[in-house]
C-alpha cells in the first residue's frame, strides 16, 4: 500500500488525495482559509503551506537511495507547497508546523499579511466566536502588528442582496463565495472586481445577489465580510445554544442547526450531511425560525360565539374535545392528518381514532408545482409526506367535497393550515365543529372552534421522512412551559447554561409557549377514555411504528442518531396495519 509520512508519522492510503484533505480526514489540524471540501481548489490564501519532499528513486538499482544513517534521502521541493493542492504520492514526506520552523514562519507571515488591511472590527463583527481568522491568528499568527499605515478602505455595509450584507474591507479574497455561486448554486451572480489590494466581491452593477441559496455564502465566508442581513447584530455566537434539527419548510429534509438564546430561535444554519444536503441549505428554510418564535398559539382557545374566542384551560379543552367525539358517531367525524406533522403525532392520531371507530384518516399533500429546483428546494412543501403515506393514511382527492358532506359534523385537523393554503374554503367548514391542533395562529385557527396548541419542530423530538425516503429526526431546541433544558437529556445546553447563575443569563419565561406535543394530548384523551395508549417518550412511539409497519422495520432513535438518518429501503405500497 502506498505510504506517506506526515511529521514523522507513517500513514497508509489507498487512493491518492490532496494532502490537506487527507490530513483533515485524519483529524490533523492545518490552518487554511480558501479550501472547502465541496468546492474547487484555488490555493490562493497560501495559509496551508507545508514543506514536502519525495524520496529519490534510483531507477538502475530499483530502490530508494539512502544516506549514511540508512534513512531515505528526501529531495524537498524548493518552495513551500500548499497542502490543499498537493497530490499525495508514495513515499512523500510532509512537514507541517509541528516539525518545521520554516512552515511556522510561513504561517505567521501569511497571517501578518492578511491582517495588515483587515479592519479591527472584532468587537462589532458577527463572525467573532466562529471566525477562522481569529482562531488561526491566535494559534499561528504574529504577536502584534508592524503595519503603521492607513489601511485600504473599501465599501462597508453594502447591500449585496436581500439577505446578504457585504463588508468589503474584511474580505480576504478567498473567493469561496464566487466559487459557490459558480459551482454549487450555478447562478454566477458574484465576481471579484478590481485588481490587487483594491479587489472585493461584488454583483454585476445594478443587479442583486438574489440567489435562492445566497445565505450559504455567509456560512462559508471565513471572515465577517458576508453577513446575514437578517441575523446581523442579534446575538453573539457564544451566547446561543446549538441544537440539530430538520428543515421543515420543504420535503428535502435538509439537516440544520437551530441556534437559540433565551428560548428564541435566532438563526438556522445548515448541518453537514453528505447524503442529503452536503453543507448547504436553501434561504427559504432559514426563515422558519420566525414560525417557531412568533405568532404562536399558547394555551388552548375555544370559540364563544360568532366573533369571539377566548383562552381556556387544558382541562376544559380536553373535556370539550371528549364531548364532541363521544356525542357523535364515528362516521360523523372527519379526521385529517398532516404531512407537516411528525410521524409520531400522525401515528398516535391514527391509533387513537382507529380505536374509537374512525377507520380512514385523510390528508392532502401540500405540493406547489414549480417550486422545486432539483437541488434542495422541492415541490413538496411539507417535511413528512412520505412518512404519512406509509402510516396508512388515505390521500383525499377533494377535501372540500368531503368536508361539505352534511354527514360530517366534527372535523379534526392535525397541524395543517388548510384554509391558508387554499386546500379548503370557509364555506366548506360552515356548520361543522372544527378542532385544530396548531402551532401558529392562522386563518385556519381563526375559523376553528377549538384550537389545541402543539409543539413545533423546534420544541419536540420527532421523526420525519423526506421525499427521498430518508427518516431523520429533530431535537428539542426551545423549551416550552413544561420542559426544562437541564432536565431533558435531548436538549442541547450551551455555555450560558453550564456556567453562571440565573442572574447572569437574564432568561425570561416570556418566550416559553404553553403547548404540548400532539401525541401527548391524544394520549391524555385516550386515558380519559380508558384506552391503553401509553407512552412517555416519542422514541417509544417510533419503536412501535418500527415493529408494526414493515416499511419502518429496524428504525429507532438510536439508529437514526448513529447513522445521521436512515435511508428507508424501497418504499412500496403496504397494507395498513390496524393498531
Amino acid at each position, binding site marked *: 500500500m502506498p505510504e506517506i509520512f506526515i511529521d514523522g508519522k507513517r500513514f497508509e492510503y489507498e487512493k491518492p488525495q490532496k494532502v490537506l484533505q487527507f490530513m483533515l480526514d485524519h483529524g490533523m489540524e492545518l490552518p487554511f482559509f480558501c479550501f472547502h471540501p465541496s468546492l474547487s481548489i484555488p490555493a490562493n490564501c497560501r495559509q496551508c503551506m507545508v514543506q514536502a519532499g519525495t524520496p529519490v528513486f534510483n531507477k538502475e538499482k530499483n530502490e530508494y537511495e539512502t544516506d549514511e544513517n540508512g534513512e531515505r534521502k528526501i529531495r524537498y521541493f524548493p518552495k513551500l507547497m500548499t497542502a490543499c493542492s498537493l497530490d499525495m504520492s508514495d513515499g512523500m514526506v510532509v512537514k507541517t508546523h509541528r516539525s518545521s520552523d520554516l512552515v511556522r514562519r510561513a504561517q505567521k507571515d501569511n497571517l501578518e499579511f492578511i491582517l495588515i488591511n483587515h479592519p479591527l472590527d472584532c468587537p462589532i463583527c458577527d463572525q467573532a466566536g466562529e471566525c477562522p481568522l481569529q482562531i488561526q491568528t491566535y494559534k499561528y499568527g504574529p504577536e502584534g502588528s508592524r503595519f503603521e499605515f492607513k489601511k485600504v478602505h473599501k465599501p462597508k455595509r453594502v447591500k449585496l442582496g436581500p439577505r446578504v450584507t457585504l463588508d468589503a474591507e474584511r474580505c480576504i479574497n478567498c473567493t469561496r463565495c464566487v466559487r459557490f455561486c459558480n459551482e454549487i448554486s450555478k447562478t454566477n451572480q458574484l465576481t471579484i*472586481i478590481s*485588481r490587487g489590494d483594491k479587489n472585493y466581491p461584488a454583483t454585476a*452593477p445594478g443587479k442583486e445577489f438574489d440567489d435562492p441559496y445566497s445565505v450559504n455564502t455567509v456560512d462559508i465566508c471565513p471572515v465577517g465580510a458576508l453577513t446575514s442581513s437578517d441575523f446581523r447584530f442579534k446575538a453573539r455566537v457564544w451566547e446561543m445554544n446549538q441544537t440539530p434539527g430538520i428543515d421543515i419548510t420543504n420535503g428535502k429534509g435538509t439537516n440544520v442547526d437551530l441556534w437559540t438564546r433565551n428560548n428564541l430561535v435566532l438563526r438556522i444554519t445548515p448541518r453537514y450531511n453528505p447524503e442529503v444536503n452536503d453543507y448547504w441549505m436553501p434561504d427559504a428554510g432559514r426563515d422558519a425560525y420566525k414560525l417557531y418564535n412568533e405568532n404562536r398559539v399558547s394555551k388552548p382557545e375555544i370559540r364563544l360565539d360568532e366573533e369571539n374566542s377566548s383562552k381556556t384551560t387544558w382541562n376544559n379543552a380536553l373535556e370539550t374535545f371528549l364531548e364532541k367525539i363521544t356525542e357523535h358517531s364515528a362516521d360523523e367525524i372527519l379526521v385529517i392528518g398532516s404531512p407537516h406533522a411528525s410521524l409520531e403525532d400522525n401515528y398516535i392520531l391514527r391509533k387513537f381514532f382507529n380505536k374509537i371507530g374512525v377507520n380512514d384518516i385523510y390528508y392532502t399533500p401540500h405540493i406547489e408545482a414549480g417550486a422545486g429546483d432539483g437541488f434542495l428546494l422541492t415541490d413538496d412543501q411539507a417535511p413528512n409526506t412520505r412518512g404519512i403515506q406509509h402510516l396508512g393514511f388515505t390521500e383525499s382527492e377533494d377535501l372540500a367535497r368531503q368536508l361539505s358532506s352534511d354527514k360530517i359534523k366534527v372535523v379534526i385537523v392535525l397541524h395543517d393550515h388548510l384554509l391558508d393554503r387554499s386546500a379548503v374554503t370557509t364555506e366548506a367548514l360552515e356548520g361543522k365543529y372544527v378542532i385544530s391542533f396548531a402551532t401558529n395562529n392562522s386563518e385556519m385557527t381563526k375559523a376553528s372552534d377549538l384550537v389545541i396548541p402543539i409543539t413545533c419542530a423546534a420544541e419536540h423530538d420527532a421523526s420525519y421522512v423526506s421525499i427521498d425516503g430518508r427518516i431523520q429526526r429533530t431535537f428539542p431546541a426551545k423549551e416550552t412551559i413544561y420542559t426544562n433544558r437541564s432536565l431533558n437529556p435531548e436538549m442541547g445546553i450551551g455555555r450560558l447554561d453550564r456556567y453562571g447563575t440565573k442572574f447572569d443569563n437574564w432568561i425570561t419565561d416570556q418566550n416559553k409557549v404553553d403547548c404540548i406535543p400532539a401525541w401527548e394530548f391524544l394520549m391524555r384523551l385516550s386515558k380519559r377514555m380508558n384506552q391503553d395508549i401509553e407512552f412517555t417518550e416519542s422514541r417509544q412511539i417510533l419503536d412501535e411504528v418500527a415493529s408494526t409497519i414493515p416499511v419502518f422495520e429496524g428504525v429507532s432513535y438510536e439508529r437514526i442518531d448513529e447513522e445521521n438518518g436512515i435511508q428507508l429501503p424501497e418504499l412500496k405500497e403496504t397494507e395498513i396495519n390496524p393498531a
Partner: protein
Amino acid sequence: MDIAFDKTDLEEIEKIKAKYPTNQSAVMPVLWYAQEKFGHVDEDVQQIVAEALELPEAHVYGVVSFYTQYYNKKMGKYVLDVCTCFSCQITGGYDILEYLEDKLGIKAGETTEDGMFSIQSVECLGACGYAPMLQVSNDIYVNHLTKEKVDKLIDSLREDKMPEFESIPLPQHQNEEN
C-alpha cells in the same frame, strides 16, 4: 447614442467569436469593439456584451474591472496616458505630467470641464528608449516629449487632429547609414 448592438455590430461579433472555440474567450475583443463604438464600457454596455455572448453579467463586470484600459465610465474625448514609470521617470516623465496637469487645469485621473481631455498617469507603455512619452486614447504614441511638443499636441487635438503614427528608426540602422 442608444446603447445597443445593431445588425452590423452583431455580424462583427460573430466574426470575432469564430476565432475562438468558446464564447467566453471573445469577451475581451468584444469589449474593445464596444468601447470603440460607445467610448466606454459602463454597466449598460456590459449588459449588452453579456447578452451578445451569453455570459453572466457579473463575469463581464469582473473582466472590465480587472483591465485598466476598459473605461468604466465616460472619459474625456482624448485620454492622455502619460508614462511615469522606470525609464520615463528618470528622463522627466513626472515633469511632463505636471506640465500637462497645469496646462489643462486638472490632476491625473480627472477630466476637463469641457469633456475634451482626461489625464492618467500610467505604467510602462513599452517606449522606454523614446522617453518621456504619452499615449492618446489607447492609440497613438507621442514620443520624445518636451513642453513645446506637449503644447503642439494639445493644440492639434483641440482641432480634432489625432497625431500620426511615428515610426522611430532603429539607431543601429542610422549608424550604418552614417
